[in-house]
């Protein structure tokens, strides 16, 4: 048990750090604050081109697909070092982390060599199209139809909650190809070129006023059969592969609001007293510190497993569950601490530029996106603890006979 790099790892880390010092700026803020992000996408594209040109994109991917042919542990070292710098690659995480492995696993070799290098360098941006209005927690309840038409597939239907669709060139899309068989069997996974007339992207306005997500409408959108990922009817297996790799893509702890809360406690005075010296704050701070540390340390355990060639199991769901709930609790507790002034959204008035106020409004979304609290608990219960499923009324009957309430 030690936190030291091997000699080779230490050399790589030094090299990365040297390159970053030359090519990026250190973070100005002590903690990351939630702000409006104007122009972030263009900045991210430019930054990532630099990364790719220097050979640091997709370190663990094979060279022929635009990667560096190195290991997961190199990728981890990169992520650790880049975290100290003011860079942005969040726009590409889903494409590279989720879509990339699916394409590598299921696409024909020719297609892979054609599309993956551009994905790796973020010349092409990708998104993942699974959720639908009537298929949120129940992803496999989706209705977007894909029908084979001579030599190509035609897609009709609607996706929702698609992060980054407005910027994306391609997507990985899960569709229903046979509504007459049971729900998990009638699904097929495809890649799709999103820059075509049959695809329309509409941003969704969130409760906090932001627009991070989209609706995507398919109206006879065309997909060549070469873009099929896996067997017809084998889409659910492909989707699980995507979700499993999603866990690999998480190279750090997800935002849970703790760093900002600690900063608030340490660096704010109220009525002449440091916030951290308030015993009630200290009581909460200790509990949240222990949770945050637990998440960080659990993440070290996961990285150790990955470094050893393993794949993280469903226990990774706990980071999402714990972090999301804690994030909302922290935001509410902090805003409450400001008393009347807590209700002011003005950036200039509040400590941390109104971070906690924004967080109050954004935090409910984190508990929903990427699987609700309830789904996370189901996953832990069934996949980690092996507890039995509930009685399933949608099992073993054709999809189009499953009750929908309408």
């Amino acid at each position: 048990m030690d936190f030291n790099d091997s000699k080779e790892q230490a050399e790589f880390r030094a090299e990365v750090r040297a390159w970053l010092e030359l090519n990026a700026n250190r973070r100005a803020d002590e903690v990351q604050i939630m702000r409006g992000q104007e122009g972030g996408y263009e900045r991210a594209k430019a930054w990532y081109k630099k990364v790719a040109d220097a050979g640091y994109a997709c370190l663990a991917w094979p060279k022929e697909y635009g990667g560096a042919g190195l290991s997961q542990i190199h990728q981890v070292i990169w992520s650790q070092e880049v975290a100290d710098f003011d860079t942005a690659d969040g726009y590409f995480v889903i494409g590279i982390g989720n879509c990339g492995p699916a394409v590598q696993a299921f696409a024909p070799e020719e297609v892979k060599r054609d599309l993956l290098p551009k994905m790796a360098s973020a010349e092409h941006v990708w998104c993942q199209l699974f959720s639908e209005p009537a298929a949120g927690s129940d992803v496999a309840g989706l209705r977007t139809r894909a029908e084979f038409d001579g030599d190509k597939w035609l897609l009709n239907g609607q996706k929702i909650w698609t992060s980054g669709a407005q910027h994306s060139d391609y997507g990985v899309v899960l569709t229903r190809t046979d509504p007459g068989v049971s729900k998990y069997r009638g699904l097929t996974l495809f890649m799709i070129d999103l820059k075509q007339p049959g695809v329309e992207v509409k941003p969704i306005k969130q409760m906090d006023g932001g627009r991070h997500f989209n609706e995507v409408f398919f109206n006879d959108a065309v997909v060549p059969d070469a873009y099929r990922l896996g067997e017809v009817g084998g889409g659910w297996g492909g989707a699980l592969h995507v979700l499993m790799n999603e866990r690999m893509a998480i190279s750090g702890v997800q935002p849970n609001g703790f760093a900002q809360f600690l900063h608030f406690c340490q660096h704010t005075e109220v009525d002449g007293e440091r916030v951290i010296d308030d015993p009630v704050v200290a009581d909460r701070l200790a509990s949240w510190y222990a949770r945050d540390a637990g998440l960080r340390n659990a993440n070290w355990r996961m990285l150790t497993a990955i470094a050893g060639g393993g794949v993280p199991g469903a226990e990774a769901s706990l980071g999402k569950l714990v972090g999301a709930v804690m994030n909302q609790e922290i935001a509410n507790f902090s805003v409450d601490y400001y008393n009347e002034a807590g209700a002011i959204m003005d950036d200039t008035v509040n400590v941390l530029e109104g971070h906690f106020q924004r967080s109050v409004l954004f935090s409910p979304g984190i508990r929903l996106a990427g699987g609700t609290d309830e789904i996370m608990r189901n996953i832990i219960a069934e996949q980690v603890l092996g507890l039995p499923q509930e009685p399933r009324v949608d099992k073993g009957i054709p999809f189009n006979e499953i009750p929908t309430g309408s």
Partner: protein
Amino acid sequence: MNFEFSDEQKFIQEQARAFLGDKCTAAQVREVLESDLTHHAGLWQQVIELGWPATAIPEEYGGLGLGYLELCVLAEEIGRSLLPAPVSSSIYLATEAIKLAGTEEQKRAWLPRLAAGEITGTVAFAELDASIHKGQVAVEVAGGKISGCKQPVADATLADFAVVAARDIAADNFSLYLLDLSAEGVTRSGVDSLDPSRPLGKLELKQAPVELLGGAGEGAVTIDRLLNGAAILLAFEQVGGAEAALNMAREYTTGRYAFGRPVASFQAIKHKLADMFVAIELARANAYYGAWALSTESPELPLAAATARVSATEAAWEATKENIQAHGGMGFTWEFDCHLYYRRAQHLALLLGGQRVWKNRLVEQLKPAASNSHTL
């Protein structure tokens, strides 16, 4: 022994619910939320015509001469419908301040116009750099002129006058003052609010003329009593809003299907909604006790008010945040109304100071005078 509102009070409540259910839907709330409007003028006018601002004003001052119980049942419906109007600022706080502390002359001057809805008031207690809850006030009065900055002030840009807490430099104590917001030396502006359907603002004061309200140096005592009354009325708003959120969650999850069955049939959702119900029932029961204490000016008012407040803030937070959760992704959209309740819950929870303030007020009431203690 009767721990229930009277039939007359329930009738007032039903009328209010029918009126607001019809006239004050999410569409009206959004008119204010999504614009720079300070309030829904049409609804506020109708509320005035219904006599709500006059409810608890004695008849001798042009009011209806009803009591706090009637105001409580109205507050519950106002909370349920998220009425975007200066009810708390003007009715629960400014009007009550004058009733509590005003001289006979001041009551005669102000209350009839408040009752008739000719004018609207607010209170300006909070400051960014001084906590009224610790008896701190930085805004100063000298020679009948007030200077300094008050923020946040609910309905600052709408109200005609404000009851302001300020320090008398000469006397080194603090008092309440009546301030005409159109007077010279008053600059008012809006600040962004967590709940834009209930706008906030600030008052920058430079030698603006003020009039003492109540006795000199009695600011703390009056504010204390005023906050207790307002906390109970807001508790009813919070309970009303929380119950509306629970009802939204119930309807949505009953109608929406996943895995071939109504979402509401999953135990995780059922138990979530049961917990919301429990929090609301406890808050409601405590609000009722508060209503009784307020209506009888019971010595238990401070404890009852803090209890009602702590429970109601808790219930409103629980119900409005879990209503979003029960809706799944759609609950996070601007289009769905979940966030209207969630925002209002935040607004109400912070308006008179947060949970820390009210928990401390509650515990202060439980501290025994004599130290009849064992040692551990």
